[in-house]
């Protein structure tokens, strides 16, 4: 079983590594964005799926990562790989600062505060024009970076999925899930809930920051409206809910299926496809609260390693 799962993973990785060699640029960028959404949805899943704190402002970390990375490249002349990591660190730092006050709030209040924080970050970036160029955005032309960005985004996505897999099978992850199920009981069991919530929040912010940095490097141009778009948070939430909250493969399946469908089919009906996203949330919440993974029984990879 272990060996077979390992072989499947190896096969998928090899296949994806060959994509840039064999396919046209369009397919490469399509897969790149699937990677990005896998990374984002899986990160969202850490705080909102495993830990049960729904964040409606996660785009803040993506956007901060993108901006920190772009500023490091343009102002400090930093090479892009360290700049991307600094972007992730910036997002993690922001989440650490926000986590202490915000994670004291119970679930629904936390969700609302995060809704505000996503917008505050966008307005902040608009306001500090000297550093961020305000509404004009930052542009840093460089030769086509599709292939390095592809691999960087792929590694990021793989890292988050590996982290999720570890969470699903570790004591640390179980403690997060116990917070989700009953925070008071978790505390009574001797779990330092504050510490665990903050670590989960920082982890779920770091990777969107990294993904934001790679996104900025790939596009070589960012501006506040699209980098802090509420739609990015909506996508993270829908992909995770659709795939299955609190599972390892749920966000992966959700991100890949919904992104491919929206790119290939629904792009011709821009508003209808988003309306359909809204309808999907409603249907999934009402009738299949555990998402696609709940439907397929989530056997195999998802089975707990320990009993």
């Amino acid at each position, binding site marked *: 079983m272990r060996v077979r799962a390992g072989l499947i993973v190896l096969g998928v990785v090899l296949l994806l590594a060959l994509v840039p060699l064999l396919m046209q640029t369009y397919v490469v960028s399509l897969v790149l964005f699937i990677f990005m959404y896998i990374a984002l949805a899986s990160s969202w899943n850490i705080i909102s799926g495993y830990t049960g704190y*729904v964040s409606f402002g996660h785009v803040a970390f993506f956007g901060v990562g993108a901006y920190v990375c772009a500023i490091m490249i343009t102002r400090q002349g930093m090479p892009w790989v360290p700049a991307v990591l600094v972007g992730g660190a910036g997002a993690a730092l922001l989440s650490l600062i926000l986590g202490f006050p*915000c994670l004291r709030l119970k679930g629904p209040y936390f*969700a609302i505060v995060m809704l505000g924080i996503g917008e505050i970050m966008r307005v902040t970036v608009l*306001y500090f024009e000297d550093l961020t160029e305000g509404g004009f955005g930052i542009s840093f032309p460089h030769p086509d970076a599709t292939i390095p960005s592809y691999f960087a985004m792929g590694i990021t996505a793989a890292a988050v999925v590996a982290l999720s897999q570890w969470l699903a099978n570790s004591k640390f992850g179980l403690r997060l899930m116990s917070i989700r199920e009953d925070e008071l009981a978790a505390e009574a069991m001797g779990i330092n809930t504050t510490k665990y919530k903050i670590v989960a929040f920082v982890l779920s912010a770091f990777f969107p920051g990294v993904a934001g940095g790679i996104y900025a490097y790939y596009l070589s141009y960012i501006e506040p409206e699209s980098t802090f778009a509420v739609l990015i948070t909506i996508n993270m*939430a829908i992909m995770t809910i659709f795939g299955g909250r609190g599972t390892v493969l749920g966000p992966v399946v959700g991100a890949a299926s919904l992104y491919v469908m929206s790119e290939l089919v629904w792009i011709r009906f821009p508003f209808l496809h*988003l309306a359909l996203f*809204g309808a999907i949330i409603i249907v999934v919440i009402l009738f299949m*609260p555990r998402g696609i993974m709940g439907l397929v029984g989530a056997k195999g990879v998802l089975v707990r390693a320990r009993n």
Partner: protein
Amino acid sequence: MPIPITLPLLSQIFVSGLLAGGVYALIALGLTMIFGVMRVINISHGEMVMLGAYVTFWLFHLVGFNPLLSLLLSMPALFLVGLFMERFFVARVLDLPEITSLLLTFGFSILMVNMALYFWTADFRSVEYLTGSVKFGGLYFSLPRLVAFWVALTITLATFLFLKRSRIGKAIRATSQSRDVAMACGINVRRIYAITFGIGAALAGAGGSLISIMIAVYPEMGALLTLKSFTVIVLGGMGNFAGAFWGGLALGLAESFGSLFISEKVSEAIAYCLLVLVLVIKPSGLFGIVRR
């Protein structure tokens, strides 16, 4: 460029803040009623405001219907929307953790915005009614804002009177105090839930009709209003009906003074910052009694 700050200027700012606050209070009252009675945070509240605004816009645009009279249509229409949403969707998840109804209404919010974008396009529409302003006691009052304020105040007071005096109003308050005791007293709690959600939606619709004569109407106007309503009810204490009124006025004043002292650019962010600050520092609200 600094503007000299004089007493007339400050009073002018005070007045315009107060006028905006009246409509915020009306919209937020609907949100806080739904939360107080059902413990449901309706993320699609701002979208209901948007629907109310479109009812007024289309009636005015197509048949020249008086925007103030259109309240008589937008409120019942949104009442039905709320009733429908509660009966078939929200009622099913009431016994699940609060986060479930939050995600459910989040789905409705996305659905409503994008249906509106599809059918009515992203164009900014305006209802040109009662333009201009009146001068009174040395201060200028924007006419649409003045009228909207008084109508909002009337509807808010009527709602309070309804909650205070009528049988259903008393049942609503009883349910918000304790669902189980209300049930034991023979109140049909499920019916009260449906009615409360309907009234909450109707108040949002009324707010939409009134706001349409003040600002532009477009499908994505709701998100900002949802956030502002949250700020208001957080200021006033979540689920505290009277607190929503004071919170509304407080937000209106904070916004107008904020845009004077800080910057016009950040006036939008004032609501968000207030929201975050109050939730983090004093989650029970500024005027609220602590509810647990």
